[in-house]
């Protein structure tokens, strides 16, 4: 039986996708912020990819300097609000909180960060002004977390910035690819607007960069180019039946869900293929959309799945059933998907092998492939001398995020193969500083 009723309205959708980390009220924030020990050289800071001075911003909340608190956060991370809610804090800052060592609940750092940043966003309290114009221009390709962060930092340094975005909304996977119970579209868009209002970077929407001529023009017009292009569509798993109706990629599925909410109709039985965080999200979402049965099928064991345990627990809590050590061999159906044929797997000599004569079929009405996104290989080929590693990631200098083609810098999923929003935020900022240093030495 489904744990969730099919949402028929926006209200019902919101009910099924209640935020996991709701905004704190003033009293909650006051008491929670009181608990921070203000550790020396705090482990939470080190656990944050952007190195936010967490004890400081918490102390600032406690002394009712909430604007100062938000400034501390944004000084380190341009996506301070988005990261507060979508970061896997349990394995980052909150996981590092020293309270854990005495079984005291760790500080709710993510929610406190949301409290401080939401305060300045909702009251439109500006914290930044663009730097004095230095007459230089930078093109940013992709308005995801890395691109936005890069643009903000560059504006602060006095650069003119134009972001080219293929889709109609900014923020990349933050708005298109993250489970709605982690962050709402409004929250994401409000933060970008808040930053844009202060720093004045331009975003050109629905402007995909697909041709060499476009890049050639950029190379002529701009002093530097930042690549925050992320990953591509869901990759093919290359089995028979993959092109049947109702076989969809997880990224595409989540994007449609985030854009259409309750209007998206989910069939009765859903099988999600994959063991990563996106698979967990997709499965959770299918269940919350009221699917009668949602099965998560992964080819390896539960223990080695890529997803965080808390994400798996979240999916289980939504009524998802986990099926491990099985791999799909064929998707069956006549026009529309009707079943998936699996074979059992086992690890022999550290190699994943299929078990002979262990094939079985599971009927279903929908298959969601969460087996990874394709890399932007075709796009990368448009850029001369761009070094790509064996996993199709752009190679960068880790201190500057400069690529092998000096004019190009890069960050986010395009260089790490797929990680968190917070990693993109860090990369974008680092690249902006790299661009600034490079252009200064050039001049």
């Amino acid at each position, binding site marked *: 039986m489904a744990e969730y009723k099919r949402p028929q309205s926006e209200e019902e959708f919101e009910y099924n996708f209640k935020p996991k980390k709701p905004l704190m009220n003033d009293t909650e924030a*006051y008491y929670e912020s009181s608990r921070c*020990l203000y550790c*020396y050289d705090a482990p939470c800071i080190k656990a944050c990819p952007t190195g936010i001075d967490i004890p400081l911003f918490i102390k600032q909340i*406690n002394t009712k300097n909430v604007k100062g608190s938000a400034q501390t956060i944004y000084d380190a991370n341009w996506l301070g609000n988005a990261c507060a809610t979508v970061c896997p804090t349990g394995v980052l800052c909150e996981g590092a909180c*020293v309270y*854990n060592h*005495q079984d005291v609940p760790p500080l709710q750092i993510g929610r406190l960060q949301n409290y401080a940043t939401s305060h300045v966003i909702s009251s439109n309290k500006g914290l930044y002004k663009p730097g004095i114009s230095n007459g230089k221009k930078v093109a940013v390709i992709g308005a995801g977390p890395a691109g936005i962060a890069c643009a903000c930092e560059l504006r602060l340094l006095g650069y003119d910035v134009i972001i080219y975005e293929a889709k109609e909304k900014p923020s990349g996977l933050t708005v298109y690819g993250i489970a709605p119970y982690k962050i709402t579209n409004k929250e994401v868009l409000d933060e970008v607007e808040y930053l844009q209002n202060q720093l004045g970077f331009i975003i050109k929407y629905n402007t995909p960069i697909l041709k060499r001529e476009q890049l050639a023009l950029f190379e002529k017009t701009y002093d530097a180019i930042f690549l925050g292009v992320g990953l591509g569509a869901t990759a093919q798993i290359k089995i028979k039946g993959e092109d049947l109706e109702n076989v969809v990629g997880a990224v595409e599925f989540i994007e449609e869900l985030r854009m259409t909410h309750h209007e998206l109709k989910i069939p009765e039985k859903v099988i999600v293929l994959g063991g990563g965080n996106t698979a967990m999200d997709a499965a959770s979402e299918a269940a919350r959309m009221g699917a009668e049965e949602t099965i998560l099928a992964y080819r390896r064991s539960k223990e080695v799945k890529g997803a965080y345990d808390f994400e798996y627990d979240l999916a289980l809590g939504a009524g998802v059933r986990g099926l491990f050590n099985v791999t799909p061999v064929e998707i069956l159906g006549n026009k529309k998907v009707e079943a998936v044929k699996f074979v059992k797997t086992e690890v022999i000599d550290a190699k994943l092998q299929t078990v002979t004569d262990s094939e079985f079929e599971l009927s279903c009405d929908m298959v969601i492939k969460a087996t990874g996104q394709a890399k932007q290989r075709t796009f990368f080929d448009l850029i001369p001398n761009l070094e790509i590693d064996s996993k199709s990631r752009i190679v960068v200098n880790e201190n500057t995020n400069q690529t092998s083609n000096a004019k190009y810098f890069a960050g986010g999923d395009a260089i790490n193969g797929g990680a968190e929003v917070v990693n993109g935020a860090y990369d974008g900022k680092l690249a902006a500083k790299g661009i600034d240093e490079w252009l200064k030495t050039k001049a």
Partner: protein
Amino acid sequence: MIDLSIDFAGIKSPNPFWLASAPPTNSGYQIMKAFEAGWGGAVWKTLGVPTINVSSRYGAINYRDTRMAGFSNIELISDRPLEDNLREMEEVKKYFPNHAVIASLMVDTREEWIQIIKDVENAGADGIELNFGCPHGMCERGMGSAVGQEPAVLKTIVEWVMDAAKIPVITKLSPNISHIIDPGLAAVQGGTDAISLVNTFKSIVGVDLDSYAPYPVVDGKGTNGGYCGPAVKPIALNMVKDLAQHQEINHVPISGIGGIETWRDVVEFMLLGATSVQVCTAAMHYGFGIVREMESGLRQFMDDKGYQTIYDFAGKALPNVTEWKHLNLEYDVKAQINEDKCIGCDLCYIACDDGAHQAISLSSNGNRIPSIIDENCVGCNLCALVCPVEDCITMERVDDGKKDNTWHERTENNTIPVTFNDDRAGGKGHYVPEPIEALKNRL
């Protein structure tokens, strides 16, 4: 069988827990409710000359999530008609003949004192407390602390009162004086039966950052208040000790007042010589029910230690409160960190390095468990005090306990150091970093 009853200068009470003269004793209703809740006595809110009060009367110090760690008021003595108070006093005594009802008084002339003493005696009061303490409002009219700060005047009024009173008289002292012995001695010389202390401390509890006026703000202005609550306990304890150790004073019983909230506070005041305690802020914060914790804890303490009455241990700490020159210079403790309990906050490290003697070093293996540098540890306790974990840092004795050598003895023996050449002189026995080491992160 534990007997909590007391005979305080002839005032009998079923237990030593009294409500201090303050807002909680403003009416017969409140006092009857308090007696029902378990209080043994109550000092009626000061009766005297007619007054009017202002709106906004209290302010507080909140420390992190702790409300009212310190509390301040600008309320005057009772503004209710004297005849109402007297009638209610009579009624309280009718229902609670064995509880202690003490009338706090504050008037101006000798005639007024004589008349009001007669009034409260007729109403059935078991004793009188002379309010020579309030540091706000009434002192501007020559009463309260204006008396408490002038020992000669205080003595004269005590003499007037002793002449007129048939019931026991307690003189309540103001702490707003550099030498508490002076008013204490004056009260005893005037013939008082007992002393109570402390009244509130002259204070400004905070300043409003918008109206630029001190708390509590009365239409854009404020005045100094009387400060009390947990924050003042240490100062009160020291003053109680001063009187209880004084040979010309300590034959009269002392009622201890100042930040008492828990049984531990009660026992501490008693160990320093108090034989009744008075409570105000805790009752204002938590209501009269707070007395149950005090009584239960006091009984548990007495049971554990084998005491029958509070007189079995009252004053027991007094012989151990001595002058610095009588402390054993050979006694040596050093901090020890329990590695199993340490959570790695490193607050002890930074407290010691910045605030004490650079006697703690950081972990070199990344586990964040710091270690004590024995040669530098002076046994100051700071690390143990800042440590957030129960019993994680302990102070362990390292001398052999056989030697006793005090500054006083060395003075007598003519062996006090004349230069900084003693083994225990700072910098001799332990390492003090060179100033330039403070800048090592710059290099």
